């Protein structure tokens, strides 16, 4: 057990099998893969359709951009909201008097 942990500790990253290296960078690889797919999707649409991005005019243009914008927007909003409305976890419990000073949930 201790031996293994020594090997895997971050002192010497390049060691270890390919699978392990993939696993440790799974997040990055997934992000890149997704990015490629998204770009591919838009590319495909642009190539295949006559009027630019909108391949299916009856489905409102390049609405597929929406999630990108919306996702960014939502996460930004969420962070803003968290900053504004953020309270300790036991906020209500303390307010309601379930918890006294110095007591934990």
């Amino acid at each position: 057990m201790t031996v293994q942990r020594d090997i895997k500790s971050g002192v010497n990253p390049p060691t270890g099998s390919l699978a392990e290296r993939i696993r440790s960078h799974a997040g990055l690889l997934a992000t890149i893969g997704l990015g490629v797919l998204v770009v591919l999707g838009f590319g495909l649409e642009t190539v295949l359709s006559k009027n630019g991005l909108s391949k299916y005019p009856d489905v409102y243009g390049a609405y597929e951009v929406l999630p990108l914008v919306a996702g960014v927007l939502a996460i930004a909003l969420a962070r803003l909201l968290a900053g504004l409305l953020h309270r300790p976890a036991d906020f209500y419990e303390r307010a309601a008097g379930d918890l006294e000073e110095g007591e934990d949930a």
Partner: protein
Amino acid sequence: MPDILAVLNGVSPAWFLIVAGLLAWGAPWSPVRKALMLIGPCFALLAWFATHETGVYGVIDLGPFQLETFRFDSLSRIWVLVFILIAFINGVYALHERNRMTDGAALIYAGAAVGAVLSGDLLTLFFFWELTALASAPLIFAAGAPMAHRAGLRYLAIQVLSGVLLLAGAAVWASQTGSWGCDAIGVDSAAGVMLLLAFGVKAGFPLLHMWLPDAYPKATGVGSVVLSAFTTKLAVYALARGFAGEGALIAIGLVMAVFPIVFALVSNDLRQTLAYALINQLGFMVVGVGLGNELALNGAAANAFVGVIYMALMFMTLGAVLHRTGTVKATELGGLFKSMPVTGVCAIIGALSVAGVPLFSGFVAKTLILSGAHYAHNDLAYAILVYASAGVMELSVLKVVYCAFFGEARHHQVREAPQTMLLGMALAAFLCVYLGVDYRALYELLPFGIDDYEPYKLNNVFGQVQLLLGGAFVFALAVGFKLFPLKSDHTILDADWFYRRLGDGAARWGKAMGELLVHAINTALTAGVARLRARLFNLFNPAGALSREFPSGLMALWTAIMLAAVLLVSYFSPMS
């Protein structure tokens, strides 16, 4: 149909569930209760199959009015079926649990929900409406903690309030129209508004929604599964019954589909995240009901059907996590996929269904509502729904799956969930996939025939996949740059602040001021005035003059006053 089934023709499935629930409540032996939890839904399902013709059965004649306890038609039967299914799946899922309170309560709750869907008049609806409230509260209380107790009381109060609104609205409605029938109502009258509010409380309308993220995360692991399934979908059914095509519902539904997303993203309690995601789901259905065309109504029904299953699946996986780790807080979980792979797979299937990935059940249902919005030429609704569905809805379920099963590992020493829980989850997961593939089976249940509708058209699938990929990409980027998920244990204020903090604070302030006032009276008044105070106290305290044993003098005075009142009134009355 076999002859055996003919006996059950016209017997409301609700009774099987309720009777099984009552028996389970009384049965002290766990195996008996577990058997009842499986047998009850089975019989209910048989009754559902046996009643193959639509119509009104089980009319109870109460003299002045008639209670229609079993109205079986194209709209109600799909809801009933999914309620029975989920009651059964929950029965399987809960096999490991030894809790007398929740077993019976879950069955009665399911029965009440089925009964409410099947009720043909507002009085019957009210009865089952309140029964769902009463039967579901134990599922929250059973969690045991004082927090759960308080949340359960808040939940119960709000649910009962909804029932009272319903009864009041029904009474006014009946007095205006002379009918207790539970049919199209509309918001033109005061009664209609009252009924809409009553339904809206249960459907989680904006600002009326706070009971949902408040109570669901505090229920027991098993309890939250059934809680997520019945109450809100029942409300959607009631809305579809009474307010189909009501324009206001589109706006309400859109708000419901959008605003919870932000809360879902920042909530630390994963079950709370799911509760917000549930409101978002409900928003879709409410928009579908509000649009009111056949496609959209079908979409609302289909969404309710698959929504019950995949939301239950999500709650089941988190229930399993809770069972093993004792927590569902994002900050305390992570990397569970290694130790609970089956649960993890089920969660992923659930998440894919929620997100609406093609070949999963969410896709075939959600696309109906989107098409409905398109068909109605409601561009704004369409755009917002797209935003809410593929873009961000996905984020919140991705967050649940990511926080619990991937990311930084925090629990190394847990076992896989119990076999029975896995079986329950597997059943639900199977349905999620099956309905996504064999979507005709789902479409045949819908209230309006849609043989010609084809969800798997190239543009549809392609567009949807693109949406999902975009959402996933944003999520992955955000995770990569450590922008998300937020890693802190916190409470995010929601509308419940108004009553939990502001209302509570006002009550506290009032009490403190009252105490100060009493104190001031106590100290400030001199001996001469103290006599008056003593009198006041004698009058108003529990043993005081107003309730004490010696009121005959006071009473004689009242008599004189009342005599004067009657004399005055009768003296100055005009002659008829």
